[in-house]
């Protein structure tokens, strides 16, 4: 159950946003972040949801 993806390769987002992404069935790694330093924001998630269909309905597990 450990994280295998290096920090470097992961989307920048806070735990709250990452949880929200899973609730919205969005794979956060596919979302372009427009926040400071490229952080994914709540707006980015909403935009992504409206633009693209979410790739999977299962929670986005990693590894």
């Amino acid at each position: 159950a450990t994280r295998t993806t290096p920090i470097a390769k992961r989307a920048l987002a806070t735990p709250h946003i990452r949880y929200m992404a899973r609730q919205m069935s969005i794979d956060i790694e596919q979302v372009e972040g427009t926040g400071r330093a490229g952080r994914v924001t709540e707006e980015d998630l909403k935009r992504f949801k409206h633009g693209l269909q979410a790739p999977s309905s299962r929670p986005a597990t990693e590894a």
Partner: protein
Amino acid sequence: MVVGEMLEEVEVLVIGAGPGGYVAAIRAAQLGKSVTIVDKAELGGVCLNRGCIPSKALISAAHQYESARESAFPGIESTAKLDYKKVQEWKQSVVNKMTGGVQSLMKGNKITVIDGEAFFTKPDEVRIMHENGGQRIKFEQCILATGSRPIELKSLPYGKRVLSSTEALSLDEVPERLIVVGGGYIGAELGQTFAKFGSKVTIIEGLDSILAAFDKQMVRLVEKNLKKYDVEIETKAMAKSVEETDNSVKLTYTDKSGEEKTIEADYLLVTVGRRPNTDELGLQDAGIEVGDKGLIKVDGQCRTTNPNVYAIGDIVPGAALAHKASYEGKVAAEAIAGMPSVVDYRCIPAVVFSDPEMASVGLSEDEAKKEYTSVSVGRFPYAANGRATALNQTEGFVKLIADKETGVLVGAQVVGYEASNLIAELGLAIEMSATLEDIALTIHAHPTLGEMVMEAAEVGLGSPIHIVTR
């Protein structure tokens, strides 16, 4: 199977009541599940009974004894007398308070507690052995959290004077001479603690440094303190065999030059790692696959190859730390309740309660250099911090590591007074994807140790106030 043994049905069964299991049980109950937890020993697991809590209690007492015995403050002369039996009693009272707390939490959350040892008989059934008898439980969902136990070396079998951390924590006397085989964090913490209580300690370590998982510059400060207490450290040494008598132990080992040596002591403490408790659970009968080193294979929600069984804590891969166990416990419970929780952290902190304390979170400088094209490193010394100086605690540093391109913090290390508390901000910073600038622009109170975090960020950015870097 005993005839007439009852078959009970439960919604969620948690096996093992350590920081993984009891936290999972609470979270599952909070989410409306009916929960039963079983443990073959005490509530609280290794952590509360034989690990984190008793070790930290002894460390505090040793610190108190040391600082009262030889006050480092000019103008305050003090002497101290140690009654180690009373210290042990107090330590036990701390443990009891914490485990009593867990008991109340079980009650408060209406969790059924069963005393006994569980093993699988079917994919959805366990048998539980009590002192007098047994029982069968059929579960809808199960969370396995059976933790780990000390590794026993064939060449150094445990005995009356060859101890694991468990017995060392409960000794009712301070050994005059103590040998510690294994200088990982448990060996270093306990070795230093006994040295402070007055033992003559020797640490035998196979690698080229004690606390090898940490930055060399951090470890150097701990070694310096160990020297103050006359602790001898033999690195690249190999313990060979032990001879135990009624009053002493004799350890034979080869030192770094390959020479065979023998030393005598009152006790020998062996801390060479821990092994997951997965061998006697009947996992094959439940369709639960085990991978490397006896660790159970799980997915991002801590689900094993048996879709109704989850596994967390020391029995799954990753750092064997209490806070990881608890975090996974919450994830597993939430997954059972249908929430989209996954093990999804950017970093897990690791703290050693040595003197000085060491703490680390995220990537080390070397790791970061492998992952990023370019990194910024900001280091700030305790000696240049006002609060540290006013506390007479000027050894140590804070080190921040950021991806140079984005400025995002990816790792941090702290060695020094209260490192265990300073690391909290840095863990949050990494989780929040904070940049060095975010940290530098956050006003930190004066005079506090936290100002070092702000200043280390400024060092990383190139313009620290309180040190000259040009």
